[in-house]
């Protein structure tokens, strides 16, 4: 084949490729629907329920019960990877190709703004849910611009796990309510022979989403805010500096062990379970695991939980949890709505709580005798959630959390001064949230 013919064929193939590449329609939807009421959801039939890995096995049982009652509207569970980031990736990809493969989405509380603004989930009719019976902060995370886009199903708040046995031996009768009290209690414990080499306090300080939670809590517990009520960032304040300094000084003085800066949830849990920490800021899931009597935990029965401490009084937790939403591209949205109603009914939430120990979103379940006997930390958890502040409700949440992590990690590792870190963060957040 001559050189000329070869070149011609190559050019033809390249041209074909360019044309094909240009054929993809990638312009997004232009206008948004600015009508007042929520659009009516229709379509009954089989749907898919998309959620991260269910370690309890209870979800399948609940879905089976629904399937028995609704043979024409069967629900299939589509399990996504365990990591929250991966779940988001899959749901976003599904939305980008406008696929109807996903119907009900199990969203993390911080994704509501992004999914709503990009119109990947549909508005839900507020009046069809008895939202007054749900925890108010949880409902708040499911709304965007005053419209309901998801229904809260699981909630989460921070708890301070503390070694009751060590505190009692050191003569501290009440768990600390302020950072100074926690510091004093630590010193007393470390003076004991059993307290030698035991770290004082740890949370989640590695450079990931957990750091955003801990940083926000530190700032909020000192009386500051990350993003204010008006949606505008305000971190360059004295309160925020006090909050960040609690973490920075803790690492400098050794109250927070050096290794603490590599802790995610699991590393911290292992340290607490090995008896290496007196105080540990952690989510409720640690309760069951740290109380395990199979030998994995050295602190079974020796600890209790309390609300997290703050600068001058009890601290303010960051709100965690999950909401269920309906994909905008799904076919049988009405079935999805009914399924969400079923999953958030009192009966179902109670069974879920008993099986998984994940905090429910219905307020009255926290007083139910049966569950409180099984999970004594529930009243503390309810107080924590009711006072909790959500993370910034921003469409570009990925960038916001990256900026927060950059500031917090930099300050805690001594790369930036607290003042510098916060003022840089303020300018970055202003840029990201400007309308």
């Amino acid at each position, binding site marked *: *084949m001559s050189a000329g013919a070869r070149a011609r*064929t190559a050019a033809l*193939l*390249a041209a*074909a*490729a*360019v044309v*094909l*590449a*240009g054929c*993809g329609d*990638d*312009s*997004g*939807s*232009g206008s*948004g*629907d*600015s009508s007042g009421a929520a659009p009516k959801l229709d379509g009954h039939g089989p749907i898919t329920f998309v959620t991260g890995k269910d370690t309890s096995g209870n979800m399948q049982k609940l879905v089976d019960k629904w399937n028995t009652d609704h043979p024409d509207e069967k629900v299939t569970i589509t399990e996504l990877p365990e990591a929250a*980031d991966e779940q988001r*990736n899959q749901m*976003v990809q599904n939305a*980008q190709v406008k696929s109807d493969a996903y119907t009900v989405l199990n969203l993390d509380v911080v994704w509501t*703004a992004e999914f*709503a*603004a*990009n*119109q990947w989930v549909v508005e839900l009719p507020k009046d069809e849910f008895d939202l007054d019976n749900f925890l108010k902060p949880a409902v708040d995370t499911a709304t*965007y*611009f005053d419209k309901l886009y998801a229904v809260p199903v699981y909630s989460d708040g921070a708890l301070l796990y503390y070694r009751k046995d060590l505190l009692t031996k050191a003569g501290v009768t009440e768990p600390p309510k302020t950072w100074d009290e926690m510091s004093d209690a630590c010193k007393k414990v470390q003076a004991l022979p059993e307290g030698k080499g035991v770290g004082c306090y740890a949370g989640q300080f*590695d*450079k*990931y989403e957990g750091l955003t939670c801990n940083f926000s809590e530190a700032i909020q517990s000192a009386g500051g805010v990350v993003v204010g009520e008006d949606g505008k960032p305000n971190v360059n304040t004295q309160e925020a500096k006090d909050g960040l300094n609690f973490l920075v000084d803790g690492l400098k003085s050794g109250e927070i062990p*050096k*290794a603490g*800066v*590599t*802790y995610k949830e699991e*590393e911290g849990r*292992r*340290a607490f379970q090995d008896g290496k920490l007196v105080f540990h800021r952690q989510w409720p899931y640690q309760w069951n695991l740290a109380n395990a009597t199979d030998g994995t935990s050295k602190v079974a029965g020796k600890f209790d939980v309390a609300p997290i401490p703050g600068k001058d009084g009890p601290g303010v937790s960051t709100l965690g949890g999950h909401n269920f939403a309906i994909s905008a591209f799904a076919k049988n949205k009405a079935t999805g709505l009914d399924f969400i109603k079923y999953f958030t009914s009192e009966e179902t939430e109670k069974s879920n709580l008993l099986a998984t120990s994940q905090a429910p979103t219905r307020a009255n379940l926290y007083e139910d005798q049966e569950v409180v006997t099984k999970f004594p930390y529930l009243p503390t958890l309810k107080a924590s959630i009711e006072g909790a502040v959500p993370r910034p409700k921003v*469409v*570009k949440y*990925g*960038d916001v959390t*990256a900026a927060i*992590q*950059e500031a917090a990690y930099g300050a805690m*590792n001594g*790369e930036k001064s607290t003042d510098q870190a916060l003022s840089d963060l303020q300018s970055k957040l202003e840029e990201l949230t400007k*309308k």
Partner: protein
Amino acid sequence: MTAPALPPAAGGNATTSPQRHGRLALLLLTPTFVVLALVILYPLIAAVRESLYLKQEGVDPETGIVIGGDKFVGADNYAAIFSGETATRFWNSFYNTTFFTVFGVAIEVVLGVAMALVMHHALRGRGLVRASILVPWAVPTAMSALLWQWIFQAEGIANVILPGEAVLWTTEGFHAKVAVLIADTWKTAPFVGLLVLAGLQVIPNEVYEAARVDGANAWARFWRITLPLVKPALLVAILFRVMDVLRIFDLPYVLIGERKQSVETVSMLAFEQARNLRYGPAAAYATVLFLYVAIIAYVFVKLLGADLIGEARERTRAERRKAKRAAEPEQKEAVPV
């Protein structure tokens, strides 16, 4: 040896044997070309095209809905990479990428050649030695990254074994680079070893015997016989590894974590942009990385003579020329008088 020639057509028309073979060959190869174009060329061109667009991220202040749509911005995405704060981050990741490539591949080559020599000369348990050397290569990288993360934890086995104060491997600093290098070379030195082993096995024993007779010691035999003769295989292995490490992503991402300046690589930057749905800038980073890899590969092939298909192609060209020259006198002879 000439190519088998069909008897030339009577009267000597235009379709002589080599050209008919050529057309048939083209026809048979077209499906392959189509698949290659679809799998390699199309994504490449689509990515370059994507890098010329930027997603409109503005939010309507009244409804809160993203305005959306892609806008053609030309080379703006590329300009954004090389200017301002992003430039510092880009050049840092460029340096990290180059650091991992240079030192990673150097260590892998040394270890790989050593492994190849061991595998080649192993007399007892040859199968077991070879299998155990190849196990790291068989483990998926993301899994090995998780395993090494376990080892490099604050209370992990690495800190237990090493004397002195515990090193926080996953925090910022040179130790993070060391951790990535260790995990990477552990996994890929066997690959280099495998390719070099193939090169070692074609070296005839007589060469070594002759050298021994001439009085060369082990080191001289290695340096003056083994290495030069294994050079083609070694260069191919190095080229593969260089191109792989330039694109390194999963190890620093899983082992150390994202957005850690000590180990951030260019592919991680592209991934972060894509994760935030900014596919234009992501494609721009990817294209820049592609150009970097392409330039290095070109340098390797041209200057260092890594002959992936070079010799083979030259052989076919020479054979073809020979076949043509042989066919011409036949034609002249076959013309009916």
